[in-house]
């Protein structure tokens, strides 16, 4: 086992996914196979290879500091299930 039950639970918490007790073993097994596949990358000898930030041989394009975007307020708010006075409403997140 490369991935244990506890790790599945923790990843579920981080990903905000609810996973039932019964599902954990199956998910662990399926994640195992993914990790196993990815682990093949570790077999490659990269000693002589320079770290690469991006496969594209290009650098970041810069933008001038000007306002170009129009407000999408109504369109975006209409996509939300709950809004009030232009606020999106979500379950309370006070800490």
């Amino acid at each position, binding site marked *: 086992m490369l991935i244990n039950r506890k790790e599945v639970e923790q990843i579920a918490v*981080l990903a905000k996914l609810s996973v039932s007790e019964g599902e954990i073993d199956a998910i662990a097994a399926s994640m195992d196979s993914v990790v196993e596949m990815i682990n093949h990358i570790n077999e490659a000898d990269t000693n002589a290879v320079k770290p690469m*930030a*991006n496969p594209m041989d290009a*650098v970041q394009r*810069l933008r001038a*500091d000007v306002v*170009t975007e129009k407000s999408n307020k109504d369109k975006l708010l209409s996509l939300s299930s709950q809004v009030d006075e232009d606020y*999106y409403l979500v379950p309370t*997140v006070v*800490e």
Partner: protein
Amino acid sequence: MSDIQWETVIGLEIHTQLKTKSKLFAGTDTTYGASPNSQVSLLEAAVPGTLPVFNEKVLRYAIRFGLAVGAKVIAKESRFDRKNYFYPDSPKGYQITQLNHPIVEHGLLAIQGDDGKQKKIRINRAHIEEDAGKSVHDKYAEFSGIDLNRCGTPLIEIVSEPDLSSAKEAVAYMKEIHTIVTHLGICDGNMQEGSFRCDANVSIRPKGQQKLGTRTELKNINSFRFVEKAINLEVKRQIKVIESGQKVVQETRLYDADKHETRSMRSKEEANDYRYFPDPDLLPVHIDQAYIDNEKQFIPEFPAAKIQRYVEDLGIKTDDANTIANGKELSLFFDDTVALLKQAKAISVANMLLGEYSALLKAKDTGFESQPIKASQLSGLLDELALGNISHKISKVVLEKLWNSDLTATTIIKQEGLAQVSDSSELEAIVKDLISKNQSQFQEYKEGNMKMFNFFVGQVMKGTKGRANPAQVKSILEKL
């Protein structure tokens, strides 16, 4: 209670909102105070298919900060990473930041330490990142309201080394950073609006111990006063915890100004794992030395250097130098005026600006930035005064006449006949005329009554509407 002496160790993370017109990765308006969710582009709303494009102003501002704190590293290649977390104020589910290749590293900042001596605080790094939206909690009972206007606003997070030894030093450091970013003009410094925010990492250790104690992080403290209070409270709490035989838990704590306490913010069970990785949507940012050098022209002289120059080169009193140097508009106006002086000394500019000029601004309920009088007009006035062409009293009259005027002091003095009467024959005639009209007073003066001497000087000044040269009047009287 034990007899252990505790030492406080503090490091600060300061979030500085950059004064740009548009957001970090999209051309979305950043104006503060707009109605909720009216300044949200498809990018900040995390609509699939959108891509970030880097605002060059942010890069330039970050470089300027690096130059201002003498950073050893201003990275020719910087990169962006994703910090992953779920929170409704960040629709993408991650924050774009710079973890491994920040733009600025290893700066230094001098503050006044607790012992009164200069202390150098190391700045570990300053990196570019995006701000999150705002959650509104008090408006709804069962919901939080989300306003994404602030989402994607550019920040630089300035991270100090744990070099601060008290709440007082932390405040001194924070104020110094505030001075730098506001004088650079890269941040408006408005703490009420959240443009300048601070998290403090606080730990204690027995005095003399090298190893750092377990730290707690105090979040989002939004005023200089609260920083001091929150840190002092937290230090007291940690001492109490340790002295009662328990351990300080590494956690994030919130300062509650109303209850005057710090309290734990996150439940222990929650795994804080940000799973950073390089943002594949953004390429590395490449700049060359010429690009960095070009920003040097935007680095102003900071108050600390100004004070030294004013005191040492210009002979200004330390207190006055402090006042002038710390007022951004005031010091610019002072420097401009001093540069134009032909006869007068810089100290006369300081006295005028902090004295009559300030009083006049206050009376008219305005500030130095309104520039009712130009530097060339003020220097002209002070030159006339230094040359003895007008009396000190008349200089105040001319100052008021210069207000919102295009005329020079010299022109006003000529037009209004305000020039000091220094022609001795003219003055002598005035004095003799006064004596003939006030024989008994003159007799008393002759018999040694010095009050009468002042009476005559006063009468001459009155008769000439302040235009007589008092020293000359005195010498004429003495001769008679």
